[in-house]
């Protein structure tokens, strides 16, 4: 069994590493290209909490668009409170704009009773549209992202997957 692994010639190995690197860099380019088009640092997000149920469930995939300077009441925005790195997906319930350099938003999860003031920084009562919002939800695919949640919450699944792949490689007689 192991003899087949040892028989890999250096050129074959290099060629496999190269095709793997090509796949990785293509994925990276697609991601960054999408970031540019949507003007969002993270154009596709996975829903992590149940605060927007029944609309969004954990594991759903959301597509963001960040090229509109306003965020109207009713839109669903994804934001990072300054200082914290947890993206939150909630709906805009209040919007105050005008002479100020930025629009002030108040958000609330559909499934939450109270609005998001507790989630903001201390002393902060409104969100800054420019600085803290990374995009507005325009599209949605259910369930697809659940794999990433399962892998991050049950790390033993990664070992099982690698084990199965290893077994397949070893048992094949190619």
């Amino acid at each position, binding site marked *: 069994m192991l003899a087949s692994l040892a028989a890999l010639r250096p050129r074959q190995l290099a060629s496999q590493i190269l095709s793997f690197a090509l796949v990785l860099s293509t994925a990276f380019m697609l991601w960054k290209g999408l970031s540019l088009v949507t003007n969002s640092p993270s154009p596709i997000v996975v829903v992590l909490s149940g605060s927007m149920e029944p609309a969004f469930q954990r594991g759903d995939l959301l597509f963001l668009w960040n090229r509109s300077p306003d965020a109207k009441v009713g839109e669903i925005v994804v934001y990072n409170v300054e200082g914290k790195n947890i993206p939150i997906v909630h709906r805009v319930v209040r919007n105050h704009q005008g002479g*100020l350099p930025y629009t002030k938003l108040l958000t609330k999860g559909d499934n939450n009773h109270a609005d998001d003031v507790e989630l903001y920084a201390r002393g902060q009562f409104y969100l800054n549209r420019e600085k803290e919002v990374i995009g507005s939800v325009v599209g949605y695919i259910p369930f697809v992202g659940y794999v990433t949640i399962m892998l991050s919450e049950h790390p033993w699944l990664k070992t099982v997957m690698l084990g199965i792949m290893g077994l397949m490689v070893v048992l094949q007689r190619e």
Partner: protein
Amino acid sequence: MHSTSARFQNVFSFFTTVAFTVAGLVALSSFFFPTDTVATGSIRNVQIAQGRQNQYGTLGRRQEFAHIKFDLHTDLSPLFHYNTKQVFLYLTTTYPGDGNKYSNNTVTIWDKIIPNNPKSKTKLALKNQRAKYPFNDIIGKFSDRKAELRLEYNVQPHVGALVWGTVKDADTGSEVLTDFVLEDSAKARKAKKAKAEAAKAAKNAQ
């Protein structure tokens, strides 16, 4: 395709391609359903009262709260097709600034989630309904500003693009259902007091 694993990988990856294509077709087909909805809404009562709430940047400062009661009649069935997961319905009030930096303000006063199952009511007939959320302005005073009431919706699909819209008024066809005044409560109280005094004085004079 020569070995079992090669065949399985091949078939499974083609299945994901087909599944994504079908999902795309379903998402695209959603745009072909007409979304004409109408509603009639009116404000029953607006009462401005002084209140205190330790939120919205006020730190316990006294500010004006509007207590609104409204009527609403609408039929939302055109919005429900096979790719509708739920409709998020919400009432917004939009009002201008008061010579301050916030020239445009929009506040949600009421919302409702209508899921797409046979049990949920897609026709609404609300009478004297109380607004769901406390309504105060970012500067704490209303100062007789005129506000517009709109009924808006957000259709959440099973797969595809989210759609937003405003329900048009059944009589006028405009997006604004009605307007009302957010009165300055201090001024209104003074006016009421002056009127009562004038009536009392008139009575005494008789």
